[in-house]
């Protein structure tokens, strides 16, 4: 059996040794050593911090970029939706029936729709569209 250690084991031991050494050193020793190798320690820490923050920001920006891409795709697709074959009167009735049945919608919307408060025909149609797209009529009323 060979007495030679595997390179990985040797490396692990070295890392462990360096960690122990770093943990045993005082803050002042660490700053002194960092200064000797990298110049001003504060500047070096700032640079590292800035690099880390930039990476985090890039990762987060990706989320917004992807949301914009998905939104653009959804907007393009929306124009091709088939038109709903309902009369305005039917749409109004469906919306009003829904609002009567649902007590979880805020009073303000319910009151405005029930009273037809300044709502034009286009408002009724678009409100029907929205409620329909959100699945409020999925019980078979759509």
């Amino acid at each position, binding site marked *: 059996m060979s007495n030679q250690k595997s390179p990985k084991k040797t490396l692990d031991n070295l890392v462990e040794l360096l960690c122990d050494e770093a943990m045993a050193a005082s803050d002042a020793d660490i700053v002194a050593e960092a200064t000797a190798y990298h110049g001003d320690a504060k500047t070096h820490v700032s640079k590292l911090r800035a690099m880390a923050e930039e990476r985090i920001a890039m990762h987060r920006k990706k989320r917004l970029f992807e949301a*914009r891409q998905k*939104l653009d795709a959804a907007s393009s697709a929306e124009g091709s939706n088939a038109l709903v074959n309902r009369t305005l009167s039917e749409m109004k009735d469906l919306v009003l029936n829904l609002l009567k049945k649902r007590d979880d919608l805020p009073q303000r*919307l319910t009151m405005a729709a029930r009273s037809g408060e300044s709502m*034009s025909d286009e408002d009724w149609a678009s409100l029907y569209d929205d409620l329909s797209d959100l699945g409020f009529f999925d019980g078979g009323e759509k």
Partner: protein
Amino acid sequence: MPSQPFADRFLQEYGITHPSEIDLEAIAYDKGAYVRYRLLDGCEARIVGKGNQAIISIDPRPIPTRKRFSLAHELAHWLLDRGSIGFLCKQSDIGARGAVGNSAEAAANALAAQLLMPGYLFKPLSRKKPLTFDTVSELSKLFRTSNTTTVLRLVEIGDYPGMVVCFGPNGRQWFHRGQDVPEEFWPIRDLDEDSQAFELLYGGDHATRPKKIGAEAWIDRRDAHQYTLTEHSIMIADDVVLTLLWWQDEKQIRDFNS
């Protein structure tokens, strides 16, 4: 260390490091709210939501800064009251000077202003900038917000003590003090003839520069004549003047506090 406002933390999660990156439509979409621009007659903006999904409708006719505030307002409703919601928001509900008090509309307006002009971006960009409409104009271009919305934010979280006062033909309409201005400092109710605002409202002069003026022209306090402040006024409608008062020399405030 004070905790960051919700809007700051929220926007930082999207890696936003510049005002131009505040893409409210994309953020709304990421949060499940899809934005549609369509003619609305009974309201200026609307949100209907169910579960994790919502549809925000914005009337496309108002000017871009107004539409952007409406979108921020509806997004704020969604962030505050996610779930089954529905709001029909009228013109009077939406805006930095819209609904006040503790209503849902007031809360949405407050959050909307923070989403449009988050403190972590607004403060560095307004740092050490004079409290004038030149600064307001510069910031409103960056943040794509109206002069009124921007000036309120500047007075609220800017570096210097200031006050915004709005005057119409019937006198003072509203005002807003910065947090460094004592609550005992009230703006006058009727315009002083020496003020720029008076000149704009009744004299027809439409281009003004910031100018030093005796504090007694603006502040209703017995000792005001001992101090000066900087006034900059602009017309924001045919008969409405918006004035920014800046305690460039803070002596009046220091003396009051001592």
